[in-house]
Structures are given as structure tokens and as C-alpha cells.
């Protein structure tokens, strides 16, 4: 019952925002050139989704995101695991990782362009660099979340080193690893779209930039809406996996 009302409340909020958006343009609360009504934006989006050129842009962006995500997530989680397992490594590399996490990666984008041009490699590499330092700490935290007592107990019951990893580490780390995968997904998309906005021949980011410069607000907002819906759906799906794994793996260890 309560859950139902919460859900209804959320839907209502969404509806109010959508209505306010629509009304703002139609009733001239704001200049409709700046904020076209939602219905117009949706109509534009519908048209765009049947436009061969734009579909190519979507495909280019999607492939770049997929590459960046597929490379950076295992890489960063793996590095996090190795660093988290070794106290010495963690003490040595910890401060450097902290600094690199703090530095805004966007300031390096001109360097990437000079080195890699404005093609596929630049997008993927930038997204990887951006995401790597965000996901590594999650990998380290995942190792730390393994209860030491369970490892000792497993050893006492005759577990080999690899059995300790498969029977204790993997299930104990699952919730945080899935959290890292989610971050990897979100920031891979973020990095690719951002790099496209800086300089590209194809891609959603390039279109967003272009339509902004040309003051085509309905096109611009349609593309924005598309990216928003895409990332929110991805995020929710990952969150579902995480919740499921938490309910299964993360009860108090005693």
C-alpha cells in the first residue's frame, strides 16, 4: 500500500514536470524559442528516430560507449582488486589515485585531440581515462568488503587459495562490483558524449553541440531527452541487479 503511494507520487511528479514544460511554452511563460513545448520536442524526437543520418549518429555513439565500457570496467575493477589486496600497493598508489580522481579530466581533452584526432580512438580513450579513476576506488572497496573472518574460516576448513577466491571473495564482492559496473556504464556514456561535443564528425554529442550553436532548441532538447532516457534506463537496470545481489549476498556476516 505504502509502496504503491510512493510510486504514484513519483509518477505524479513526473507528470507535473511534463505538464509545466508543456505549459511554459504554450502559455508563453518563457520564450518558446528557448523552451519549445514538450509535445514539439517529442514530435522532433520521433522524426529524428526515423532519420537515417541521426540513426548513424546513435550507432556511432553507442559503439564508442560500448567499447569504452567493455575495456574500462574490467580494467579498473581488476586494478582496484590488485591494489586493494596489497597493503603496500595501496599505501604507495593511494595518494596518486586520489589526486587523479580529483583532477577534472576534461582539461586533458585538447591533448587527446592532438594525439588521437577527433575520431573513434579519442572518444574511447577519453571515456576510459575519465571512468578509470572513478571505478578503481570501487574495486578497492570491493576487496575491503570481504570479511576477513570468513577467509580464515574457509582456510581452516581446507579451502585452497583459488577456493577462497571463488567461494568467499566473489560472492562477498558482488554488490560492490556491480556498483562499479554501473559507474563504469554511466561514466563511459558521459565521457563519450562529452568528447563528441568537443570535436567529432558523428555522434549524438556532436549533434547536441551543433543544434545548440544553430539555436535549434527542439532538436537539441530531443537529443538531450534521448540521452537522459537512455542513461536513466541503464542505471535503473543496473540498480535492480545490485539490489538483487545485495539481498542475496550482503547480510550481516555474523
Amino acid at each position: 500500500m505504502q509502496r504503491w503511494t510512493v510510486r504514484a507520487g513519483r509518477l505524479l511528479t513526473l507528470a507535473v514536470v511534463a505538464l509545466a514544460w508543456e505549459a511554459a511554452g504554450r502559455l508563453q511563460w518563457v520564450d518558446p524559442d528557448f523552451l519549445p513545448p514538450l509535445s514539439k520536442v517529442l514530435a522532433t524526437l520521433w522524426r529524428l528516430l526515423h532519420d537515417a543520418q541521426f540513426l548513424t549518429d546513435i550507432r556511432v555513439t553507442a559503439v564508442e560507449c560500448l567499447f569504452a565500457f567493455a575495456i574500462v570496467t574490467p580494467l579498473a575493477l581488476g586494478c582496484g582488486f590488485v591494489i586493494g589486496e596489497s597493503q603496500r600497493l595501496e599505501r604507495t598508489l593511494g595518494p596518486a589515485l586520489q589526486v587523479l580522481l580529483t583532477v577534472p579530466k576534461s582539461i586533458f581533452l585538447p591533448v587527446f585531440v592532438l594525439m588521437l584526432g577527433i575520431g573513434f580512438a579519442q572518444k574511447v580513450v577519453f571515456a576510459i581515462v575519465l571512468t578509470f579513476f572513478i571505478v578503481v576506488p570501487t574495486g578497492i572497496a570491493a576487496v575491503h568488503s570481504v570479511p576477513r573472518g570468513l577467509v580464515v574460516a574457509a582456510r581452516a576448513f581446507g579451502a585452497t587459495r583459488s577456493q577462497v577466491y571463488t567461494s568467499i571473495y566473489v560472492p562477498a564482492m558482488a554488490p560492490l562490483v556491480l556498483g562499479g559496473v554501473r559507474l563504469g556504464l554511466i561514466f563511459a556514456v558521459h565521457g563519450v558524449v562529452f568528447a563528441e561535443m568537443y570535436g567529432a564528425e558523428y555522434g549524438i554529442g556532436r549533434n547536441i553541440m551543433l543544434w545548440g550553436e544553430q539555436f535549434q532548441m527542439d532538436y537539441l532538447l530531443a537529443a538531450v531527452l534521448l540521452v537522459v532516457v537512455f542513461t536513466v534506463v541503464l542505471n535503473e537496470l543496473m540498480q535492480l541487479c545490485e539490489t538483487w545481489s545485495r539481498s542475496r549476498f550482503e547480510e550481516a556476516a555474523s
Partner: protein
Amino acid sequence: MTVAAVSPEVVAARAVCKSFGDGAKRFSALEDVSLSVHEGQFISIVGPSGCGKSTLLQIIAGLSATTSGEILIDGERITSPRPDKIGVVFQEPLLLPWKTAAENIEFPLALRHEAADRRRQRSQVLLDLVGLRESAQLYPHQLSGGMKQRVAIARGLVRDPRLLLMDEPFAALDEQTRTRMWSELLQIWARSRSTILFVTHSLIEAVYLADAVLVMGTRPGRIIERLPIDLPRPRTPDMVGSEVLGQLRNRIWHLIAGPPT
């Protein structure tokens, strides 16, 4: 007691020393510790905190190496965990939260890749032994503290070890649950005819459960007395308040804290 004295020796510690650190920082946790546990016996180790009783237990479990001296099980020297010979129950239940009670009990068998039906058969027997038949499919977070510790005991016994090591297993339980667990444990011990080495910091617990109490002293950690407990069996909760038990408790206390003034 007389029967236990002639039964074969299960585990022996011979002049075990354990020290940590080097040079001026060298710290002797255990010095010249020798002990012997015979088949079917229930031996308690009691001592003040810092006397190295948990270190000793870790060494016997094969989880920690000696600096000198040796541990023998059935006359065979051990240097690494021997789950076939020794079952361990820790202070925390340390159950795998993602496995049911039955699966937790079967865990040591699963590590040996034993067939599922044989594992199931064995966990059934042990669930019956610890009185948790109804809770086989529950997860650890659905069990009370006492039930979790009973699952841990069942897991310790699942490979039918020669010796069950228990490291302050009831320290985290409330007093009433602990008192019930004493009776449970003594029944389990009698039914499974196992041999138990039980570390505790509770003097009453040490005396009430055991055939003999090894009293440890600190700085360096060593055994200062082996005290036979001649209370009749079966032990009943009423004995906890009895005069005999109280006198034994006081003797241990004075061994640890110095003679009465």
C-alpha cells in the same frame, strides 16, 4: 576420567613457543607450552586476556606457525590446516551469509567436491544432532545468535574430525542463551563422542564443561596448571551454583590473580 586417561592421544603440543617481532620489540606470546588431549576428553583452556590462548588455538588449527616446538595430531606433525583431523568453531559464527544453514554445514564437504546427495545426507545428520532440523533452509540472518553458533558447531563436526577446537564460541551470547548452549554442547559432545579443546575466558564455563582445565598465565603465555575437574556427569545447570564448582572456580582465579590476601 580414568577411561579418558588410557584412551589414545589425539592432539599434543610439544614445547610450543611463539614470538612476534624482532630484537628489542620481540614479544613472546607463548613459551614452552605442552599439552595433551586424549580421545573423548573435553579440555578447557582458560586464562586472562593476552595469555595467548587464541594464538595457541590458531597454531593447533594450523592457521599459524610455531616459532619452535611442534603440534602432533595422532602422532603426526602438522604445519597447515588439517580439516580432516580438526574442526574449528570460532568466536563469531562466521557463516557464509549467502548460504542456508544446511549449505553452511556442507561447506567443508563442498570444498572437497563431495557429491551433493552425500553432503545432504551428512548435513541432515548434523542438523538433527544440533537440533536444527526445521531450520535447514534458513539463511544466517534469519537465525538467532545461539542457532547460528549451533550451525557453526555442526559445520565443525561435519567431517567427523578427531578434535573439535572451540575458540570462545559462546562469548558473544547473552547469559541465558549461553547457559542453554552449555547443555546443548555437552549433549552434542556425548552423542557425537567427539574430543573437544575449548578456549574461554569464563572460569565458570571452563569448569562446568570440562574434564580438565588448563590454566594459562600471561607474560609470557604459558600453562601454569592442569586442574582435573571431578564433577560427576552428566552435568546439570544447577551445578553452576554448587559449592564444589565455586571452589574450583576460586582456585583457578587465585592461580591467575595471585593467592588470597
